[in-house]
């Protein structure tokens, strides 16, 4: 009887929690860590708010003015108290800083073996492009339990790619690549939002993320129209723009051979050493002279205006595939 009562009570609490969720679904590998920190912060906030509120309330009642001519009793500034409430909050802040920064730095680096998906934001929709070829708009299908890295850019203004259930968010900027990664832990359907104001229909730049089991995901990839992979599309562009006349495979051309270039640190004419990544390849296509290599002449023309963000991504995928082929060959 009693137990049943408690159970029904618990059920109604659960019911209320379903109606009034206080927490978004947690469906990625980093969500738990973030939530723990959030909970700790909430605890600190509650503790100090309650502390201050109750002390004030207690003093308000205890020391209320009882007659119009009443005067206060003397108190003296206490150095111990002052130091106490300087040092204790400082220590709490140090702990919080170390905790949150460790979590952040760890979360900011994708695992090496991540599936790669490209994102292009434009007013007011998300284009998503899988390496294997399929494209999506405002929908993203990902397998559960696999690290996924998103490389993102914008065609116009600043957007922001936000999946609350994964606790990931990053601005999507025009003119450069930003990236985030996540590893989904629960299958299901989750919100995808644009979280940086981007104009009239900002609030409609939303979509859904479908987290599927690996088998479902494989079936989804195989289904639909048969499309070329991103690298294959890039290869067609490479031929179309006749890039191979200078970037001769195996070297010896007027430009460097692109095989195996991706991921390698390269010394540039400016004296700087940079790892060949998406941003560098993008820059090399659009503003070639800014990143040219010392042993070659500054003869590559800019492709600014002749090529859109999507095509650049295809070329990048192609260059990356050259790298992996070479390594496979060894």
């Amino acid at each position, binding site marked *: 009887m009693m137990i049943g009562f408690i159970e029904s009570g618990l059920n109604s609490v659960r019911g209320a929690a379903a109606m009034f969720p206080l927490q978004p679904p947690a469906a990625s590998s980093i969500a738990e860590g973030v939530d723990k920190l959030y909970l700790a912060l909430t605890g600190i906030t509650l503790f100090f708010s309650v502390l201050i509120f109750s002390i004030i309330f207690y003093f308000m009642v205890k020391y209320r003015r009882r007659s119009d001519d009443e005067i206060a009793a003397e108190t003296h500034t206490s150095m111990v108290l002052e130091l106490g409430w300087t040092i204790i909050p400082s220590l709490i802040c140090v702990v919080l800083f170390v905790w949150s920064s460790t979590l952040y730095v760890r979360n900011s680096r994708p695992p090496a073996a991540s599936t790669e998906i490209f994102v292009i934001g434009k007013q007011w929709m998300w284009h998503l492009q899988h390496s294997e070829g399929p494209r999506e708009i405002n929908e993203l299908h990902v397998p559960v339990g696999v690290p996924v890295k998103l490389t993102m850019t914008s065609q116009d203004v600043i957007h922001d790619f936000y999946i609350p259930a994964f606790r990931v968010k990053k601005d999507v900027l025009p003119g450069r690549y930003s990236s985030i990664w996540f590893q989904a832990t629960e299958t299901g359907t989750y919100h995808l939002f644009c979280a940086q104001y981007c104009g009239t229909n900002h609030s409609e730049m939303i979509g859904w993320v479908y987290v599927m089991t690996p088998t479902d995901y494989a079936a989804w990839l195989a289904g639909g129209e048969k499309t070329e992979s991103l690298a294959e599309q890039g290869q067609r562009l490479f031929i179309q723009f006749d890039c191979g006349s200078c970037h001769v495979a195996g070297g010896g051309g007027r430009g460097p051979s692109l095989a195996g270039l991706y991921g390698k640190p390269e010394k540039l004419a*400016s004296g700087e050493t940079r790892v060949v990544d998406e941003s560098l390849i993008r820059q090399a296509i659009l*503003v070639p*002279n*800014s990143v040219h290599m010392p042993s070659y002449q*500054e003869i590559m023309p800019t492709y600014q205006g002749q090529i859109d963000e999507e095509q650049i991504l295809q070329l990048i995928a192609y260059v990356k595939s050259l790298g992996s082929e070479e390594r496979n060959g060894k």
Partner: protein
Amino acid sequence: MSELAAHGTHPPGFAHQFETVGQQREAGRLGMWVFLVTEILFFGGMFASYTIYRALHYESFVTGSHLLEVKFGATNTYVLICSSLTMALAIRSAQTGKRKGQIILWLILTMIFGALFLGLKLRFEWYRDYVDGIVPGINWAYNGPHAPGVQMFMCFYFFMTGLHALHMVAGLGVLTVLVIMTARNKFSPEYYAPLEISGLYWHFVDIVWIFLFALLYLIGGRYPGS
């Protein structure tokens, strides 16, 4: 205002809210210095942007810098230094109670140097830049190397020198007022605060140019092959 009588005779230029002349003078001086601090940060916003973009697009900025002619920049630096000297001497004349003719002479000389600076800038630099088509947003026909970066450099060049020139024009207006005030015998060794404060402003504008000259004209050097 009514209680001014309590302070005895009314010294020239004395304002009612102050208790002593010294207090008023110090307030004026401090006020101007604080204003100059806001000016440092006003130009500073541009200097910061310039510094960052220069670090990010070094070669473009050097290319852009070479579109400017050092001889005009240097000449204008000399001109402004002269105007700073004459301004300092104008204040000194007032401090030491020289005849008003002498103060006016130094002030007018300062104005002539100031106007010369603006004239040179307008005729030999901005006008030629316009003719040559290197004024972003208005007449842009540059098609040499590093075009986007050079355009950005030229933007900063025109904003910074333009704002500086606006400050010069404002300074010339202030100097005109000072000449009139001097002619009306407003100043004496006891009261020359407007001269002194305007002098601070004028020297500040000079300092801004010293940095503009170094940053815009000389970066990356002018030696062959730079």
